[in-house]
């Protein structure tokens, strides 16, 4: 860890935490970036106007190189924002002058200097083979530098700035270089994965440019009975009561509200930590959230118009705290997803207390934490997904492990248990859908049919994973799914579409006559009206709540981007 005072501290990673080992040579000047040599013998630390190479074993600074010495009387200080130490003894530095420089640190000489941008170069990542570097700059552009042979068959190689990419509007604060893609994240709240086409053998999911604005997690929870929504922000929670209307109208109409939506309460988390997960109970009387270090549970008291939150005292000290919180359907218990595959069951007591009831653990043990939970509506079953993508199903009546869903080699993005049939519907991040019958401990016939038939190509090529699944209580054949860009009603009673038919056919269906419409119907009924879609849930039989978060809402909150002259303006 590099510190503001110029020291570099070494910590030992021990099971359950980190342990301070020693201080390396301390010099003046804040340490802004660090990089280990691949063989762990040296550390290079970047500061303002210089960087230094520290021998880890002796703790001494073995080289100190001024990055700015050849610029005569530089008016501004040159901040080394990012640094990398390559195995062949080359130090790559990215500085605030927009330069990427290659140094031979043993000689202390500058090998190459590339001015990639007129604004600062902020981040740097090297590929594993050390033949490619990605640089992020404060204008939002990322650049790739490649180590290329000067002559065909010759041994001499040189770094060449090759491809520029402009996917961000603001500072690119972090970059990563995977074997097949450049990944960059910026101040504009976007994560961009740009595949390197020359490294990709076949066309597929990896070959497309991916942009992510929202985390693939549920950030909104809904109390169906109380018609409350809980929004999770990075440092606070907001509890809203939904408005309602008594009128009815046709498709596409906006109805007047008889009761406006009401912001009930805002709950700020203590300390600088970000909220990791949150949940409101279906009855709307309990709110729980967890940060990296603490788990908090609140009781919501409604006294007339006023709403107050009271912290539940003596919550059990769970370590580490929750990765996911989920209330049971009757709001009597809280499931807390925890490390090493365990799920804690807390019993909620009136008028504001809780008791640790049981800890569910997979029988074979698990090293990864549980990150998704799905309780059944009858309170009988609980499905838990851990980081190794195994789905364990527990019987809550006897707190026993029931079964494991056959492992599929992909991350689970959402799952839910059907209220009437107790079938577990699972959505994977590769867009596959499975239905698993819990009582029968096997995939259902429909699920097998889907697998043998295969899903529509357009469905499989979608960008964002399904983040929430819910069911229509009126029609058990309906499964409601949504991701960031679409809302889908999956009707199991209808035939599956094949690749030749249009997947998004709702608008064409509307124009067809009744008889022709019947023939064109297929299982996927997709609505793309709400974008970007954060949350969707059925409140009751004829009421659906949808949460949209317009991108412009937070774009306007971003700081001004770096001014750039555009040709022709």
């Amino acid at each position, binding site marked *: 860890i590099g510190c503001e005072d110029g020291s570099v501290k070494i910590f030992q990673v021990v099971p359950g935490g980190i342990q301070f080992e020693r201080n390396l040579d301390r010099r003046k000047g804040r340490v802004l970036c660090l990089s280990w040599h691949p063989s762990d013998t040296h550390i290079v630390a970047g500061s303002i106007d210089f960087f230094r190479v520290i021998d880890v074993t002796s703790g001494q600074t073995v080289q100190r190189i001024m990055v700015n010495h050849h610029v005569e009387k530089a008016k501004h200080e040159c901040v080394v924002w990012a640094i990398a130490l390559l195995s062949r003894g080359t130090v790559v530095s990215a500085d605030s002058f927009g330069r990427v420089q290659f140094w031979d640190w043993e000689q202390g000489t500058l090998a190459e200097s*590339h001015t*990639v941008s007129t604004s600062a170069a902020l981040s740097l990542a090297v590929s594993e083979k050390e033949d490619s570097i990605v640089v992020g700059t404060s204008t939002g552009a990322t650049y790739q530098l490649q180590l*290329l042979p000067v002559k065909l068959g010759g041994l001499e190689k040189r770094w060449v700035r*090759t491809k520029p990419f402009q996917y961000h509007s603001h500072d690119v604060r972090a970059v990563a270089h995977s074997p097949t893609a450049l990944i960059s994240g910026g101040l504009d709240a976007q994560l961009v994965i740009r595949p390197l086409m*020359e490294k990709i053998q076949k066309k597929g999911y990896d070959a497309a440019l991916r942009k992510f604005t929202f985390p693939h997690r549920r950030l909104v929870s809904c109390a169906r009975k109380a018609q409350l929504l809980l929004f999770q922000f990075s440092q606070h929670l907001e509890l809203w009561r939904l408005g309602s209307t008594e009128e009815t109208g046709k498709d596409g109409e906006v109805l007047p509200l008889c009761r406006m939506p009401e912001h009930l309460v805002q709950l700020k988390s203590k300390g600088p930590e970000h909220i990791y997960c949150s949940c409101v109970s279906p009855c709307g009387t309990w709110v729980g959230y967890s940060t990296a270090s603490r788990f908090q549970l609140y009781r919501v008291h409604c006294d007339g118009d006023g709403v107050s939150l009271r912290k539940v005292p003596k919550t059990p000290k769970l370590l580490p705290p929750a990765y996911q919180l989920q209330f049971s359907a009757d709001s009597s218990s809280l499931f807390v997803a925890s490390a090493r595959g365990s799920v804690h069951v807390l019993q909620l007591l009136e008028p504001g207390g809780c008791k640790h009831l049981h800890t569910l653990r997979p029988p074979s043990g698990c090293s990864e934490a549980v990150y998704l939970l799905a309780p059944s509506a009858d309170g009988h079953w609980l499905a838990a997904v851990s980081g190794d993508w195994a789905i364990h199903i527990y019987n809550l009546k006897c707190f026993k492990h029931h079964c494991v869903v056959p492992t599929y080699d992909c991350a689970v993005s959402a799952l839910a248990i059907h209220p009437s049939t107790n079938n577990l519907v699972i959505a994977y991040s590769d867009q596959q859908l499975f239905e698993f019958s819990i009582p029968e401990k096997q995939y259902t016939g429909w699920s097998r049919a889907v697998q043998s038939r295969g899903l529509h190509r357009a469905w499989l090529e979608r960008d964002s994973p399904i983040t929430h699944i819910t069911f229509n209580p009126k029609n058990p054949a309906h499964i409601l799914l949504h991701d960031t860009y679409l809302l889908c009603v999956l009707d199991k009673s209808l035939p599956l579409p094949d690749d030749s038919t249009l997947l998004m056919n709702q608008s064409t269906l509307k124009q067809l006559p009744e008889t022709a419409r019947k023939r064109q119907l297929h299982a996927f009924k997709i609505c793309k009206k709400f974008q970007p879609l954060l949350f969707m849930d059925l409140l009751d039989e004829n009421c659906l709540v949808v949460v949209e978060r317009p991108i412009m809402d937070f774009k306007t909150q971003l700081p001004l981007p770096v001014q750039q002259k555009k040709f022709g303006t």
Partner: protein
Amino acid sequence: YLLCASGDFVKVYSVNTEETLRLMGGHADLVTGIQLNPHNHMQLYSSSLDGTIKLWDFMDGIPIKTFTVGSKLLALYTPAGAEDSVFVVIPKKGERDTFQLVSVKLTKGAGQDLEAKEVSVVLDGVGASMKHIAFGREGAYVASVKDVNLQVYFFKRKLLNRFSLSTVKTKGGDNNFSCVVCHPTEDCIATGHADGKIRLWRNFHHRKEYTYSTLHWHHDIVMDLAFSIEGTRLLSGGVESVLVQWHNESSCQKDFLPRLGSPIEYISMSSDGALCCTLHTDNRITIINSNLRFSRSIQGLIKSRDVKTGLVVDPRTKALVLNGEPGHLQFYSLQSDQQLFSLDIVQRQYIHQAGLKQSDLVKVAFSAQGTWLATVEESEEVTDPELQLKLWFYHEELQSFQLNTRINTPHDNHITDMCFRDMDELGDDSLILVTTGRDCVFKVWVMVEDNDPEAQQSVSWSCDFVGSYHNYQATNCCFSEDGSLLAVSFEETVTVWDSLTWDLKCTFCHPPGNIRNICFGRLTCSKYLIGATDYGFLCCWNLLTCALEWSAHLNVVVLQPDPLSEHIAAVSWLSKESSLFVFKPNEPRPIYIQRNLCKEKILLAAFVPRDEPEMISSEKYLWLRKSQLFFLTDTQELMTLSTKSLEERLTPSSKQLAVEESLPVTPFSLLLGKHRRQQAQEDIDLGKPVVHNKQEQASPAVKELLHTPAHVLPSASFLCTIFINSLLISTESKSAEEVADEVEMESEKAEDDSDEEDATEMEQEDTSHMELLGEMTCKLSKSQEKELRKIRKTDYSWISAF
């Protein structure tokens, strides 16, 4: 030296003095490529559309060898790696508009003319332009671009890699390739694109893991690229007329050399890297130092977008005056093939941008002494032109024209014609300028004394009289020689006005058809007024009787009176060829007819007075005694009629003499030279030109004899017959050349190399049949055989195209 392919010739310029040192002719068609011999930097290869490759010694201007390939050669490359072969682009047999790059093995034969038939195809489907192919480091690979595809062929590994860019034009991007160059020492290819991007390709020996970086400054197509000798700098140029220098292939470090005048067409680096030169679309070469400073420029006749001003002769310098750079007037010296100076008329910054309306110069007129210059400029808008009439006074001390009066919106619509009253003897007071406009009036402008004491000049111009006729559009105006009468044409009618009282004297009309041109006769014929109409009639009216004297059916495009004689030249355009008729107004029979003058449409003509009247023996060319006639065609080639025979102009610089000059002076060569000169002289005296081809055939034997060292020569008895034979002139050639009249067209090169010129010999068919020109019967002498040869004019000498 700077070598430049120019039409059928290769020009050698001195870099230090900008002078044309040598003009190497010998190709029968457009020279398409010139490359230095990589093994001998004193030699030059040139390729031409006539299917030959010539090897020259450009220091002496001698052709060393001629290799005949057979098909049209469109580009030539001589990479250093290839031992004895060169690469040319030829059209693919059997397919139109498909070209292939082939390597031609240059056989090592003894003679001068060799066949080079050993051809092997390297790449198929290449671009026809020489900018579309480049050879890489040491000739190891060749890169070719066409549309959105880049092909790289590695000679050693026999590997062909193809890379394609997307054809989709997004956000104004256009990925079409425009040019390609290769790095001289590294494996790097730079390509220019239609949207102004430059891509630097690397790692292109991998089919998949190739990579490129992009440099973008140009907003429009990158016309050409050039790497410096060591490869650290890359020069690029385009329509912005800015030369951009990129350092170390970095987009952040670049230098500019702006305001080069006109779009850059080619960029070339000198072999020592000290200089580079850019070739511009307006027929100009700019030489630039390595530190990107303008050094000097070589320019002839500037090619402007449109010659609207017409060909005007400056009475002071006898220079031809016409549109030059946008908004400029160029003064072009015919004698030295140089631009004397360029006068900025519009005085506005010219911005290259498609669709932007620019102001340009449309009309120019000089007063008789050349002391006053009137110019009209208008913006390109059709409906509401912004007109400005400017009057310039020649300042003796500054030796330049100074703006005297600027008149905004002199007419409400386009100005169609303008002339000064040409009166030499009356002095400045009588100077009158007449302008005719499409707003149905003509205006008379006179000089007035300026009363304002603060004004720096004593006189200024103002409008004196506005005349109109039945609200017709005024189209042409013309003063009679003595200045007493002004003829103004209004659509179908010609009106004659008294220039003192501005009374309408009489009108002439020859319906149907509007009047296209009018002019008064000169000297003895001053009582005649000549007019040409749209409907193809040439009319001559007698001003004394106010009656039509004669008329002829002729579609006259240009009507140009000779200011020094009574002759009037009319150029007609009929069925894709221009014909010249010269006549005197007093007789309806033309004194000279030249059919088939050239294939291009002649737009303008001008008589340029000779400094001293030329002695012309031939009866036919007496009308050219005092002035010379120049034509400008629609491809902006300047041509003239010459009275001299072909060989007369050839003798001073013929190839044989060039050979002799390069030899050490020996008694033998002196004798030989004397003999030949004598012979040539005889030929001319007899009026029987020597067949040029014959001499060319004979020359190798002589040359061989003179080149070979004495100690390796065969015995004299063996050589004797060959030698004697070479000097003999065969009898049948004489009989074949019973040519009495010889007219040569000399075409001034208006283009350096971009223009397509066909130098095909145009023989006119027998025009013995009677010519019917309207009412007038024109009797032409029988058995009139004319041989028309197109000859290029050099700066100081004349050279044959054959």
